[in-house]
């Protein structure tokens, strides 16, 4: 069954239509990718899904599984970003947005804030409930840092980490919100081939270990073709192709969007 669907989503800024009639359907447990040339509206699509923008028209439908194991479809278009994160969609950012002045551990701990069950009064008086909550959150975050290979750096400032590790930290932080759907915005941007390979493995492992559905924007075609089950191609806001990696690679429209039209052939 589908975890995330968009129905005819249009996002318009004044006269510019950044996303035009977007229809995606991501099944539970799938790894989907969103590709397209620069300025195609990929990040805008992510921003619409995560609530940063309210779509001009259309619906974003999310079907999270609750604690009882029942999935129900909710229209999340126009909800606040923190509410959407609370429902189970976490994201990373294209241009890394860590809390740069805070420690690595604190960065991840912040993402557990939406699951706390004690009040600020209880925190100010350090009631047993608050202490227990703090301890549990810390254990969980240390586990995640261990998983991402950042545990030794937990007391470093986030801004002092090298670029690749900052990207890992962003993923760890997103995982700390207990997501069902993880949106990765160019996770391999600025990485060399070896790092990209490692990232490919990591994404694959995280998906099975945390029972995630992943939707990612990526420009590294090797990575995309290797791990995606489903690919959507955007160009100038329009979905020009969708299908499995094989279909996409041979789609003439995709080749045209990436390489341009051969004028001789057209004549």
């Amino acid at each position: 069954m589908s975890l995330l669907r968009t129905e005819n989503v249009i996002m318009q800024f004044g006269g510019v239509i950044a996303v035009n009639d977007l229809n995606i359907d991501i099944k539970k447990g799938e790894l989907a990718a969103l590709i397209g040339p620069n300025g195609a509206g990929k990040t805008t699509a992510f921003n619409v899904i995560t609530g940063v923008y309210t779509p001009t028209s259309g619906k974003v439908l999310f079907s999270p599984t609750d604690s009882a194991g029942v999935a129900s479809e909710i229209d999340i278009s126009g909800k606040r970003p923190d509410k959407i994160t609370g429902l189970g969609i976490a994201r990373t950012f294209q241009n890394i947005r860590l809390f740069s002045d805070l420690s690595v551990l604190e960065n991840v701990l912040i993402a557990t804030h939406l699951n706390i069950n004690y009040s600020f009064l209880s925190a100010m008086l350090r009631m047993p409930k608050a202490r227990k909550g703090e301890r549990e959150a810390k254990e969980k975050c240390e586990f995640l840092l261990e998983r991402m290979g950042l545990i030794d750096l937990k007391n470093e400032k986030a801004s002092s980490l090298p670029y690749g590790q900052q990207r890992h930290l962003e993923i760890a932080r997103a995982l700390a919100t207990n997501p069902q759907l993880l949106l990765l915005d160019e996770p391999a941007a600025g990485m060399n081939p070896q790092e990209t390979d490692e990232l490919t493995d990591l994404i694959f492992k995280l998906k099975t270990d945390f029972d995630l559905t992943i939707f990612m924007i990526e420009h590294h075609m090797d990575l995309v073709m290797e791990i995606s089950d489903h690919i959507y191609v955007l160009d100038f806001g329009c979905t020009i192709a969708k299908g499995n990696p094989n279909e996409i690679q041979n789609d003439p429209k995709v080749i045209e969007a990436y390489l341009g039209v051969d004028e001789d052939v057209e004549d």
Partner: protein
Amino acid sequence: MKNTQNSLGAYLKKHWKTVVFLVLVLIGIGIADQFVNSFMRRLLNLSAIYTIVALSMNLVNGFTGQFSLGQAGFMAIGAYTVAIFTVPVGLRSTIFYLAPMAPLLANIQLPFVVALILGGFLSAGVAFLIGSPCLRLRGDYLAIATLGFSEIIRIIFTNTQTITNGALGIKSIPTINSLWWTFGIALIVIIACFLLINSSYGRAFKSVREDEIAAEAMGVSLFKTKMTAFLISAFFTGIGGGLYAALLGTVDPKQFYFTLTYNFLLIIVLGGMGSISGTIIASFVVTLGQEALRFLDEPMAFGLDLPIFRPGLRMVVFSFLLMVVVLFYRKGLMGTNELTWNFIINKYRSIKSRFTKKAASAQGGDSK
């Protein structure tokens, strides 16, 4: 029972330095309370009150990153609550001689602590009302809106003759003399703020300061978080204002000009936006420093009749010192660091290694 004893034992073992320090501070206050003269007592009391108010301002401005300038207004609410409810009923007709006090309030007298806490809650209540629209604004706009609020409060208090006695102010407020009131409450506020900042709520505050978009994407509700910080800040400021009224024994609207807010802004900028210990240090330095430099205001200082030694020079020198501090410590004395044991040890080591390095290189230079 055994378990709690064990955990208490472990706690003491882990934090013995802090516990010893706190005990020393308490003993210090006890000794000071016995021996200092009334001038010094007033100054120390004032420093403690400034610590309370500046710390609560830092909660919003430093930790949550919202530029709010409503401190004087919240202090006024706390101060007037204490004034109105603690002045002895018998004296009220002489204080309110232009227009009698509103009959509803005229016969209510509350114990000091109750009035103090009520002031805190009233201040937080008003903060809730103005926060709902204002906290949607960002940066300079929030500063202007809160500054406007604090002026509105002052003007309301000037004109509600039967409640606040208008521009005449309220006199004969029973005063507090012991250092324990102000220092005791300051300690409670400091510890509460410290625990709050090191909890999930404190981290949420800081995440809003660092990056609102990322904070929201991580599930932190911006409005709720800003409101929590704003309410806690207003509550403590109200309490600080109440203590201020009880320390001076008189309140009038002119004490709560917006310039009062700038005092606290100066303290938190000097101490470090986002540092509790920096705020405490700066509160004492600024309050005591303004008095220590008072000799500059007197003519004939140093036995010479220099024309520049006249009232006001103190503030010139003080401003100059401030500029020096801001130039060399751009983020304030403490930045966003805290004066923890680790911080002190690391500082000590780095200074020590600087000297040993110099010594070593000097030696190396000699041998060549």
